[in-house]
Each structure stands twice: as C-alpha cells, then as structure tokens.
C-alpha cells in the first residue's frame, strides 16, 4: 500500500512538473502575447492540480494535507482569473492576436 501510494504520488509529481516545464517553454517560444499566455496559464492550472495532489498523497491524512488543499483551492480560483484579466486587458488595449503570415508581435 505504502509503495503503491509512493509510486502514484511520484508519478503525479513528475507529470505535473513536466506540464509546468512545458508551460515555461511555451511562454518563451510561442509567437505572441496571447499564445504565450495560453501556454503558461493552462499548463499551470493542470500542473498545480497534479503537483499538489502528489504532495497530498505524500503527507497522508494530516494538517499539511488540509493546508495543501486550501492552497490548491486558492490557486485554482486566482490563476485562471489572473489569466482572464491579463488577456482581457490586452484585448481592451487593442493588441491583435497573431496570424500566420503576419508580422511577429514585438
């Protein structure tokens, strides 16, 4: 049981870490503001769920798990809101999305 939980938890941590890493690469490599934000925000949300669930499996039923759950709720509420606000602000200030063939946003 112990080993099974450990394996499951490490699998979640590694996959979550991979998603965050991919998000970081996407934020650097994507062509314009919106696609960069898309890469960073979506993978971040999934990465948060996976990494924090992996940590919760490590800590078992304890106060630390409750705290991790609270952190996860906070991140799940605030991160998409921040992404929305950012994209909305960019849209309102007139930033056009990237199209193939067009100029790269600088």
């Amino acid at each position, binding site marked *: 049981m112990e080993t099974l939980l450990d394996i499951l938890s490490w699998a979640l941590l590694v996959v979550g870490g991979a998603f965050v890493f991919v998000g970081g690469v996407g934020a650097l490599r994507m062509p314009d503001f919106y696609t960069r934000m898309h890469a960073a925000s979506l993978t971040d949300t999934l990465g948060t769920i996976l990494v924090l669930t992996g940590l919760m499996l490590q800590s078992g039923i304890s106060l630390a798990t409750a705290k991790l759950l609270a952190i996860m709720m906070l991140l799940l*509420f*605030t991160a998409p*809101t921040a992404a*929305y*606000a950012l994209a*909305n602000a960019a849209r309102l200030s007139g930033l056009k999305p990237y199209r193939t063939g067009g100029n790269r946003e600088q």
Partner: protein
Amino acid sequence: MVTFFGLFVLTLLVITAIGILRAENLFAAVMLTGLFSLLMASIFFILDAADVALTEAAVGAGVATVLMLSALALTSDREQQQRRRHWIPIVVVSVTTLLIIYATFDNPRLGDPGAPVHQHVAPWYLSETPRLIDIPNVVTAILASFRGYDTLGELFVIFTAGIGVLFMLSTDTERSPLTLLPNPDTEGLRHHQVPRIIGRLLVPFIVLFGLYVQFHGEYGPGGGFQAGALISAGFILFALIEGEAAALKVLSFRVLAGMITTGAFLYVAVGLAGIARGGNFLDYSVLLDDPIAGQHLGIILIELGVGLTVTGVLLSVFHAFAARRQHS
C-alpha cells in the same frame, strides 16, 4: 539543500534587480519590484525568519506594489531618457559593493552556533521567555515586551510617515479626500464580472487571515504589523474591484484617521498604565496581579495598537493617492 535553494533564489533576485534597472517601462519595473519582494520573502523564509517573510510578502509584494501603481497613474509610465552617463554614482556604487563583499568574508558561516549574534543576548531571551512571558513565539516576546521601546519607535515612524504623506497629497481643502464623492458607477471593475466575483470571494478570507495573524501572533509567526498589512491589502482589493467610493463607505477617512491615532494612543496608554501601577514605562508585568497574565494582556493590547495604526496608515495613503487621481 537549503544552500541550493538559497543560491537559486538569490540568483533570481539578482536577475530581477537587473531587470528593474533595465526596464524603461515603469509599469514593468513596478511589477518586477513586486517580484523582488516576493523573492526576498522566500529568502527570509529559507533563513527561518517567518515573521519577517510574512511582513515582506504582505507589505512589499502586496501593498507597496498597489501604492506604486497608484503613484504611476498620476504620472507617466515611461522613463525619461537620460543621455549622460553618471560616472560618479557608478564608481561610488562599485566601491561600496566591493567593500560589502570584502566585509562578508568576516561573517560567520550561516547557522554557526558560535556566531557572536547567538552568544550575546539571544540565549537569555530564549531561556527566559518561557519563564517571564510564557508564549511560544520568542520573536513576539522580544518585539512587544523586551524591546517594547523599539517597537513604539517603529509605530511612531509609521504614524509620522502616514501623517506626512496625507499632508503632502491633500494640501488643497477643496480637493481634500474628506470631501471626495466620485461617481460610483464608472470606477472599479464593475463591468468585469470574472475578476469582480473572484475578488469579492477572496476579500473575506484575506481579512480573516489578517485577524488570525493579529491575534495568533504570540503562538505563530505574525503580529500587528503583518496583520495590518494583510487587512489593508484585503480592503485595497475591495477598493480596486468596487471603486474607492464603496471602500470609503465601509471605512471612511474619519474612521481611518481615528484608527491611526487610537492605535498609537493605545500603545502609549499601555506604557503609562505600567507607570500608574507602580512599574516602569512599558512594563506589562504589573498590569495584572499575575505578572505572566499581565505580560499577555500588554502584548495583545500593544499588538492591537500596532495593527490599528498600520491598517489606518496604509489605507489612508492608498485612498489619498486614489483621490488625487480622481481630480487630475
């Protein structure tokens, strides 16, 4: 492992600092200073200074960023171009940096138990706090009781700074924030439902956490300074979402001014009560018949005073900036 994390965060800190220097867009520079404070808070946390980390995160990354953005809204977000290179400042900064790096060679190793700082008064505080004050958080015991004079001084620095900023920002009686009545329909984020609803959801939790930090300061990290910053961050979030007028309806300028003065007065009054009961200024042991209970009462009261003044000052400064923006 701790050294590795420390080096990692310090490297990020240097990169952020260079980013702040090189940013020509002041908006980006302000955001980077917020990031700088957050990294600073992580370093304090790595060094086991949880109380300081909490203050840095709440004040530096939270309230100060909003205040800088408010100041930015009054001016331009572009840096003015400077063609001349300033050689004297560069030389002065380089020499000072080299001197400081040279001085760090004399520093004891991190966590060295034989370091002078662990030999002077620290062992006395650690051994006598359970006997004299009986609270688990020695930092609070030192801050509020043993070094009560220093904290009184800090509180009055904040008090004076708050009054000074308010005087500078509201000189014109016609435009005084006291008479400000902006149009509540056009400000805030009323037409952006997603941030508005999520923000409104977070405000009560932030204020609740602030109150927890205020009244749990003897047991865990925290106290009046951190709680004041957290509570005002909650109210500033509310003001950003619903507009300053709605926030001023909850806590008006008159109430805020009252909080600033009541907090400072409460601290001094606790000190004077010590004299009246036959002890020294800021000696809480004589406040009640049981010296330890007296210490507890004194610490709770002065932390309450600190919390009131810090909340009042931060919120009035924020509203003063906002009022200035309304009129310009």
